[in-house]
């Protein structure tokens, strides 16, 4: 157990003098430090890390990071930077296994003095640090402080190992490395596995266990070899050499197996990526086929529409030749001819209607008047004359009769209305078809441009890549299988040799003691290995369940507000059904965080989106602390970045309820919604606000008052919806949700 009681920072970069007393109240374990981006959050985190770990807690090359105040003018005396961390443990350290039952208070003090120096090269800093001191003081029962006998490095490494710094002083971006990196960077899967496995083994205490078992096993082999030597038996020595050789090969195979497991993990990941990409591409390929079909349909429709249009246009062309139209243009002439000829028709002159009648009179020989026409007479001559004259005019008259007939017929169309109506219909048909053809053309252009977007070549490439990866995967698998078989065989050989050697040696008196040692060591190895296997199995299973539960509570009610969908190809929070931790292989001490979808298919963590990875990483960190019963502070920056809505609320709630001493650096926008405010009101035992003087309104910021003329960051006790003379920002006085806090003490 470790709880921070006080952090004091003096003359560290933008901090003049700052003191934080994190909450140590188990009912209200949360400490909230409200700080806008750029107001000194990162620097605060660095100051704490430097306090804990010294130079190695700073970024960049050793000595290059300037931790003295920005305003410091180099002078001969220099300036002292100091960080003091007061913390408390319950003594549950392996160093004091039999130790004190009561809590122990420690103060870790680190200080360094920066002095001026003349840079010898251009990009060299104009300062150097001298007199770095670190002291670990322990409070005696009488209240006095005495230096701890084990020294700073030892105790800090014991309590807060450097390699696990992300667990205690965490930039959430770095914590995301446990699951393949943050939103901004990606790391390779085998590195993820390495990092995860180390954290699991270290926090669960497996690391030391494993190294102990390894050490005892190696001693056991030494005893055995020495026992063989002691027999001075040549045959045995030969067998022993053979055994050593077998063991050497076993080691080689183990190493190769591990290498291949890593390669397999990486290849798996690339394969999953390739398949994802191919799936996306094939999705568009399906669309491709549908588009091709539409194109064919479109072509058919266009062809038919064009044919119909051609025949409609032909109709129009034929309309130009219709006699009704021509007659309507000649309407004057048609009417005139009708009027001219109708009387002639009426009076019987066209056609000459009396001619057949008169002709028959001549044939019968009697006129209508009764006179005889058989012999020549005037009357007969007259009749004959009429017949001759009429016959002469007959063709002419017949012609005119036909003309009248035609004129009457055409006269009916002379107004041209019927023709105009029909032509209109034909023209409309053409217009409708024009419209249809236009639409079809537009559609075709759309389809063409969509088809252009789909890249057949890319699909082929993706298939090729997958094929190659599958090949190399099956090669790796074959190697692993054959190595596993070889390992089994070699283990058998080695057991047999051990048995042979032991049997042969038994007679040798000198070897007896060593034999006993070897036997004892073998027993210890057995105990250690079995205990180890059980702990690993149980705790990993526990951690697995814990992670899934934590993840579930953080991802609850995610439906509406997965605002950050950063990568289209990546799985979103909603798609994840189960998460957890599993060993990479039954026998290995390597672990991997996994996420399964609802169909039970595993998605490599690097294949899920940034927001989900962050939640997954946090559930790992919190779960591991819980399962390992680690009671330690969690100083976290950017914890709520890339989350929103209920995920943000859940994350804050779960962290407040699960972590032993969460000290969270949050921005105003992290705390925008009432849900988060409610959580802070409920769980926070301490609140602070960090204000950078360089964010004053005169310098383009929104800090209302300038409290200090220097470029420093000031800390006040204001909660998320409070403001005071130091931290007031534009708009807070008008915001009815905010209240002014009366300053009871001078700003720190």
């Amino acid at each position: 157990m470790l709880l921070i009681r006080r952090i004091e920072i003096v003359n560290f970069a933008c901090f003049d003098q700052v003191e934080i007393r994190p909450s140590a109240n188990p009912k209200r374990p949360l400490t909230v430090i409200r700080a806008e981006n750029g107001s000194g959050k990162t620097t605060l985190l660095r100051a704490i890390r430097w306090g804990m770990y010294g130079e190695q807690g700073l970024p960049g090359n050793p000595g290059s990071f300037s931790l003295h105040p920005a305003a410091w003018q180099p002078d001969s005396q220099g300036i002292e930077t100091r960080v003091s961390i007061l913390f408390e443990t319950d003594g549950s350290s392996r160093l004091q296994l039999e130790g004190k039952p009561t809590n122990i208070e420690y103060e870790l003090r680190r200080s360094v003095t920066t002095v001026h120096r003349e840079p010898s090269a251009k990009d060299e800093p104009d300062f150097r640090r001298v007199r770095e001191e670190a002291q670990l003081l322990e409070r005696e029962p009488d209240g006095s402080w005495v230096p701890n006998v084990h020294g700073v490095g030892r105790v800090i490494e014991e309590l807060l190992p450097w390699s696990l710094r992300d667990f205690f002083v965490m930039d959430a971006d770095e914590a995301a490395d446990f699951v393949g990196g943050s939103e901004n960077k990606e790391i390779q899967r085998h590195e993820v596995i390495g990092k995860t496995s180390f954290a699991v083994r270290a926090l669960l205490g497996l690391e030391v266990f494993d190294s102990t078992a390894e050490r005892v096993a190696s001693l056991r082999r030494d005893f055995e070899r020495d026992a063989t030597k002691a027999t001075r038996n040549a045959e045995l020595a030969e067998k022993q050499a053979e055994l050593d050789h077998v063991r050497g090969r076993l080691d080689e195979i183990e190493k190769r197996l591990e290498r291949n497991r890593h390669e397999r993990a990486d290849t798996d990941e690339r394969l999953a990526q390739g398949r994802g990409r191919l799936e996306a591409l094939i999705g568009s390929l399906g669309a491709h086929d549908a588009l091709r079909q539409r194109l064919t349909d479109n072509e058919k429709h266009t062809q038919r529409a064009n044919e119909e249009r051609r025949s409609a246009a032909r109709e129009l062309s034929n309309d130009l030749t219709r006699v009704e139209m021509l007659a309507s243009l000649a309407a004057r002439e048609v009417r005139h001819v009708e009027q001219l000829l109708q009387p002639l028709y009426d009076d019987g002159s066209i056609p000459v209607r009396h001619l057949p009648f008169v002709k028959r009179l001549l044939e019968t020989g009697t006129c209508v008047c009764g006179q005889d026409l058989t012999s020549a007479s005037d009357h007969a001559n007259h009749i004959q004359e009429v017949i001759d004259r009429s016959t002469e005019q007959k063709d002419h008259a017949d012609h005119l009769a036909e003309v009248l007939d035609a004129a009457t017929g055409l006269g009916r169309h002379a107004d041209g209305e019927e023709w105009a109506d029909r032509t209109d219909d034909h023209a409309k048909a053409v217009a409708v078809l024009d419209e249809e053809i236009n639409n079809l053309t537009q559609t075709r252009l759309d389809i063409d441009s969509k088809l252009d977007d789909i890249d057949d070549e890319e699909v082929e490439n993706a298939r090729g890549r997958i094929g190659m990866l599958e090949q190399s995967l099956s090669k790796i698998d074959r190697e692993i299988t054959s190595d596993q078989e070889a390992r089994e065989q070699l283990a058998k050989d080695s057991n047999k040799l051990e048995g042979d050697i032991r049997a042969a040696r038994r007679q040798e008196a000198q070897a007896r003691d060593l034999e006993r040692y070897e036997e004892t060591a073998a027993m210890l190895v057995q105990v250690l290995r079995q205990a180890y296997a059980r702990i690993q199995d149980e705790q990993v299973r526990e951690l697995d369940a814990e992670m899934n539960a934590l993840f579930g509570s953080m991802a609850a009610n995610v439906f509406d507000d997965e605002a950050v969908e950063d990568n289209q190809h990546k799985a979103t929070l909603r798609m994840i059904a189960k998460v957890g931790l599993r060993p990479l292989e039954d026998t290995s001490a390597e672990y991997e965080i996994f996420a399964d979808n609802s169909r039970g298919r595993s998605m490599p963590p690097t294949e899920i989106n940034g927001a989900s990875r962050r939640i997954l990483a946090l559930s790992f960190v919190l779960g591991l602390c819980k399962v390992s019963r680690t009671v330690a502070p969690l100083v976290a920056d950017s914890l709520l970045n890339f989350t929103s809505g209920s995920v943000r609320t859940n994350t804050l709630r779960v962290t407040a309820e699960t972590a032993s001493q969460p000290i969270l650096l949050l921005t105003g926008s992290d705390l925008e919604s009432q849900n988060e405010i409610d959580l802070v009101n409920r769980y926070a035992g301490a609140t602070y606000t960090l204000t950078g003087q360089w964010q004053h309104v005169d310098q383009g910021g929104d800090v209302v008052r300038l409290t200090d003329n220097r470029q420093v960051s000031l800390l006040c006790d204001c909660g998320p919806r409070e403001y005071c003379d130091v931290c007031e920002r534009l708009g807070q006085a008008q915001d009815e949700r905010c209240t002014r806090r009366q300053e009871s003490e001078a700003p720190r």
Partner: protein
Amino acid sequence: MSDFFSDLLRATSHGLVLPREDDDAINRYVAMHAGDRTNVESRPFPRQVDFWAFCIATALALKLEPRDGSISRWGKTFIYTNQGIVDNDLASLLAIVAVAKIGLDDPGVTESRRIVELANRLAAAGCPEVLRKLQNSPLRTTPLDQALEFARSLQEQAYDDS
């Protein structure tokens, strides 16, 4: 319906004539050959005789005087009537026109020679008007549209007068 007039025109061979000077222009608006109906928009008239008939109707609607002078001086025969190119409808219209224009006092009014001659002279009179209309199509208006539009406007003039 009898084929009285078409038979009349077929009985003797008379040349159908359009102005020689307009020959090229006319051919631009007539289908290239029988059955070529792919380009009806730009070549709205299926045959020259259709163009010829349209010219006659145009001349009548616009009350144009038949072109005078010796036809052989300005005319170019594009077909002969004995080839049966003039159907009965058109032939009867030509006969009507002859009666209207020549009058009953002239016995030649029923002669196919006189009917065709009058038709040729009227076609020659209407031809420049038709070509002028077709050649001055506004943008995006095809000769077919233009010819139809022209026919409609002529219809109104002719009908209002009659």
